[in-house]
């Protein structure tokens, strides 16, 4: 996992406008004008958001066409969701340990039960 990349991804995702832009792009490529439409925002403001998204690798912009369509790049989003996988792993590893520990505790209890001197 590339930490710098992940940090950039989360920083880019922290803004609701940028999340809305990504959501719009999930349904297909769009021009800057099309992306600006639903938001009451100036073109420079939208352009700034697009730059952040582009730097984070979340979108790519076409070079050939004059209107430079924006396209969603899914890979960094997948890497970002990986933190959840790590979190799940935290619990499964804890449960493995709890399982082992319970066995040890039960063994100790049985030993005590069989030893009448302790009763």
């Amino acid at each position, binding site marked *: *996992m590339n*930490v710098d990349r*992940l*940090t950039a*991804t*989360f*920083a880019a*995702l*922290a803004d609701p406008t940028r999340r809305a832009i990504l959501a719009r792009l999930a349904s297909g490529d769009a021009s800057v004008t099309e992306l600006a439409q639903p938001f009451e925002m100036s073109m420079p403001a939208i352009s700034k958001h697009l730059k952040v998204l582009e730097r984070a690798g979340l979108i790519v912009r076409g070079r050939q066409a004059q209107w430079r369509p924006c396209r969603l790049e899914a890979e960094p989003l997948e890497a*970002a*969701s990986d*933190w*959840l996988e*790590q*979190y*799940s*792993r*935290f*619990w*499964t*590893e*804890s*449960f*493995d*340990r*709890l*399982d*082992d*520990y*319970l*066995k040890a*505790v*039960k063994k100790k209890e049985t030993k005590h039960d069989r030893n009448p001197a302790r009763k």
Partner: protein
Amino acid sequence: MTATLPASSAPNVVDEKEIVITRVFDAPRELVFQMWTEAEHLAQWWGPRVFTNPVCECDARVGGAWYIVMRSPDGKDYPCGGTYLEVTPPERLLFKNDAVDADGKVIIDGLTEVRFAEHGAGQTLLTLTTRAAALNEQMALAIAGMHAGWSQSLDKLAEMFTSH
């Protein structure tokens, strides 16, 4: 069986997810519940393998707090803690579980429900539902650091096996 946890009201949520994990333990639920609610036991199993818990406090009463400092094999500390919202022995626990950074700032806002159900002869079916919200990009760093700790400990384990 699965409880729907209330959505987070915390601001600046970057990403919020819910995980449900079930596991059968070969022990009666009174005993399993005890492992969750007494500090001396909790410290023995909480966290990834080969992490230790040098600090473990647990006041398992409604409104009571728990606080654990997990230490990775390379000596990095990962504090976490929260308060209990519901404690019903030996059936259910509902508690906040937050991960904090070195300055005590919450970076993961979590809410966890644990259900303990009787399951056949002396076994317990445990269902854990945890809703975690990452509050900012620092969380990514914390998780990545934890991941590095795991990888390192697995490497050590592999080394141990090959040297024998």
